[in-house]
């Protein structure tokens, strides 16, 4: 079981930033990685025709549809929603593994003010989300509070099912998530997104 963490720096007014360090988070020795570990990255999709930014290093929550948005220049007006994020785990190499499965996603750390964080990720009643150009309005089925601890069961699917497995390189379903700020909110925060999966040799 691997547990990747992304630090969300939530600076200024609703600026959420993700810092990704998969290699460090995998906590594997070089020989482990060579013989056993799949290579997994997090990708973000943007735009109408879907521009995919691979292996992202941060993830700022703002009003702009961009993987490299400036959250200060594109800050969220209190009371409004952020631009939704469409992100996937991407297995780019299987290494010595035969399958990747049991995808679990959650956030640790409080949000600024009374903001809430919603997602399509859920452990029951899961519905796969297709890609659509991100919006700042509400999205069907992106209405589940982002878990704030390990959900202890898959909450992000593969090809539409929480029990499916990646047997070769490929993507998980889209993790769609969005901040809903409160009109009284005045400051952002920093929190961490956690991505956990099982990998079978």
């Amino acid at each position, binding site marked *: 079981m691997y547990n990747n963490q992304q630090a969300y720096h939530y600076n200024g007014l609703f600026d959420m930033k993700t810092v990704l360090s998969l*290699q460090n988070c995998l906590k594997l020795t070089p020989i482990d*990685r060579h013989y056993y570990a799949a*290579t997994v990255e997090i990708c973000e999709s943007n735009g109408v*025709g*879907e521009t*995919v*930014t691979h*292996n992202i290093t941060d993830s700022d929550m703002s009003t702009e549809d961009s*993987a490299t948005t400036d959250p200060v220049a594109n800050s969220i007006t209190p009371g409004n929603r952020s631009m939704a994020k469409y992100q996937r785990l991407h297995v780019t*190499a299987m290494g010595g593994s035969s399958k990747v499965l049991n995808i679990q996603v959650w956030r640790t750390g409080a949000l600024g003010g009374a903001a809430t964080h919603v997602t399509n990720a859920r452990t029951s009643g899961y519905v796969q989300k297709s890609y659509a150009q991100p919006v700042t309005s509400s999205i069907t089925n992106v209405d589940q509070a982002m878990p704030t601890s390990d959900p202890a069961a898959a909450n992000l699917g593969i090809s539409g099912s929480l029990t499916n497995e990646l047997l070769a390189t490929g993507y998980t379903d889209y993790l769609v998530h969005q901040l809903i700020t409160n009109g009284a909110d005045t400051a952002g925060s920093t929190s961490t997104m956690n991505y956990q999966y099982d990998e079978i040799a």
Partner: protein
Amino acid sequence: MAEQIHICGQCEEQFNSEEGYLSHECEATGQIPGEPISE
């Protein structure tokens, strides 16, 4: 169907196909995304 654009989030190089991204040697990390990490 519009052609997807793929961008490496590490070195910012842009590709017209996923295969192009997976086979490039990233200037930022020194790694080829489609190959297992073998440090």
